[in-house]
């Protein structure tokens, strides 16, 4: 045994090598992701605190319709004389709730389908992926319009509709990743040890795909908010839930553009754009770093540098 002991006499390098990439460490290193995080944090704060701080109600007539921005109303009033800032803060609530909730639904379905298909393979893989393909080729917005028109225009239904149509991309990415993890020796080992399928998936597979799930979820928030805005603008949203899309729709219907009331229509648009962009920035940063398929490899090696040591020597 002395050999065995000796090998371990100098056991591990003294300094801990860099830990594996975590979601936080990935985001921290990318300026674009930091900007995205800041934007989302700002809107979350506004959504949570805003309506409580605002001196006006969302149905309160605070002055003349389409009053231009002033000190007491920094973004003016809308067609019904309601304070725009108050409306935008309320809109942030609704839009973010829709975005997060619909994305959560899509992620849950996508993960379930992706992990099942990828882990078990065979027939379940074929069937699930075929279903996924069908969902993938249907134009989302058109189907949403139809369903929203048929099922009714409640916020919860809007969330469900969006969530039920957005999971396909996630399912495909998760399936691919699961398939590759399934072949790792430690997954086979867990089964050989006598671990159940559930144990193996929960302990070894899910933790490995979770960063991808997070990245996809963030990207989907953007898509969901965008879809909700579109539905609301088309008049298919919940008429009682004041979202940014509804604010735009009201302004548009009241001919804000021809009235020159830019403050009633541009700010909610900017809000939508900012949140969608922020989510995309974060999601893409995560995906770049964590999705193995997107990693650039440099096997075709070109352009190393030459250092002339001799020239440096005295």
């Amino acid at each position, binding site marked *: 045994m002395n050999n*065995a002991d000796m090998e371990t006499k100098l*056991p*591990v390098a003294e300094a*801990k090598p860099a830990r594996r990439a975590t979601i936080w460490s990935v985001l921290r290193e990318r300026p674009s992701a930091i900007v995205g995080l800041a934007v989302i944090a700002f809107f979350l704060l506004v959504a949570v605190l805003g309506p409580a701080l605002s001196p006006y109600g969302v149905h309160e007539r605070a002055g003349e319709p389409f009053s231009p921005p002033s000190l007491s109303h920094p973004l003016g009033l809308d067609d019904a004389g309601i304070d725009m800032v108050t409306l935008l803060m309320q809109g942030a609530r609704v839009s973010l709730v829709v975005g997060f909730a619909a994305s959560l639904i899509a992620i849950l379905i996508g993960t379930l389908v992706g992990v099942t298909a990828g882990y078990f393979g065979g027939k379940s893989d074929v069937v699930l992926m075929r279903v996924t393909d069908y969902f993938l080729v249907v134009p989302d917005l058109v189907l949403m319009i139809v369903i929203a028109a048929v099922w009714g225009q409640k916020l919860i239904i809007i969330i469900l509709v969006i969530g039920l149509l957005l999971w396909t991309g996630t399912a495909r990415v998760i399936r691919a990743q699961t398939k590759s993890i399934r072949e790792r*020796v430690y997954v*086979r*080992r867990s089964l*050989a040890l006598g*671990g159940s399928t559930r144990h193996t998936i929960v302990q070894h597979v899910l933790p490995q795909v979770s960063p991808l799930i997070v990245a996809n979820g963030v990207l989907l928030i953007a898509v969901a908010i965008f879809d909700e805005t579109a539905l609301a603008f088309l008049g298919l949203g919940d008429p009682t839930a004041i979202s940014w899309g509804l604010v735009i729709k009201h302004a548009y219907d009241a001919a804000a553009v021809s009235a020159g009331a830019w403050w009633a229509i541009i700010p909610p648009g900017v809000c939508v754009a900012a949140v969608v962009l922020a989510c995309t920035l974060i999601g893409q940063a995560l995906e770049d770093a964590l999705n193995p398929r997107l990693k650039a490899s440099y096997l075709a090696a070109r352009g190393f540098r030459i250092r002339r040591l001799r020239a440096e020597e005295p």
Partner: protein
Amino acid sequence: MSTDSDALVLEVHDLVVRYPIPRGLTGTLARRPRQQVHAVEGVSFTLRRGEILALVGESGCGKTTTAQAVLRLVDADAGSISLQGQDISRTPRGRLRGVRRRVQIIYQDPYESLDPRFTVRRAVEEPMKIHKIGGDEPERRERVAAALARVGLEPPDLFLDRYPHELSGGQRQRVAVAASLVLEPELLVADEPVSMLDVSVRAGVLELFDALRRSGLAILMITHDLSTAAHYANRIAVMYLGRIVEEGPAKEVVNDPQHPYTKALMSVIPDADPRKHRTAQILTGETPNPVSVPPGCRFHPRCPVVASGHARATGIEERCRGEDLGLTERLPGHSAACHLAAGT
């Protein structure tokens, strides 16, 4: 080593494993006959407490499939696999938990066999949690520490909270062994346990297996490396195309091989001493396809005894080409499946 039957840990008898080859759509439509890979074709061996048996052979010879059948990761098509007298080859998959505890596997690649997110402590603890053994938290911790000490990772405290990427290949392989030992298995299957490790640390890991053997474990070692087998195994079984062609005490098999295939294998192992030049008996071609096994002795198309005309001269060529054969004992405890060896 006593020969009483308690010491018998594993008895494999006439094991057959075949894989169907997918025909594909065109094949099915054309009603092409279903073909099979004859991965293992009638393999028998025994393994006792405190013994290392090395299954040696080239890729595709069936050594890995044999191990997987013993682990019940593939199903046997025929034959029996007895673990301490109990045939496990027909146990339904759902009831294999107990078997899974008693038979443990060490994989080839220590860089892949540990979950990169698991600390050493968690990796070694996991098997106990799966099998709900090892008592409560503090008791399990003690067991983890004891297992680490047993595989030479001392002091255990230094390793408990490390992640696999902070360990060397040899250390990772030791962690994998520790994770198997906590289940107190009777049989350890080691699939090429050192082939991914650096030369300088291989001996240390192999000595660990030797120590485990001396403490009473039975170890089935799968390897392509006859030199390693010669040093660390008690017995060697050489496989070729799904059969064991020679089996015997390790040192005897390498120093006095009875089967022409073993002789050829020995002749191509390079020696570290540049002055020792063996005349390599290079067999032409590669291991034939286990889909269509040649008739007669399955080695005869590549056999130097047949090719050189020696078989004809001794009058056995007919039998080599037409008559399949099993192992016959040539020396005490040392058998070979060769007409030449059997005839003289």
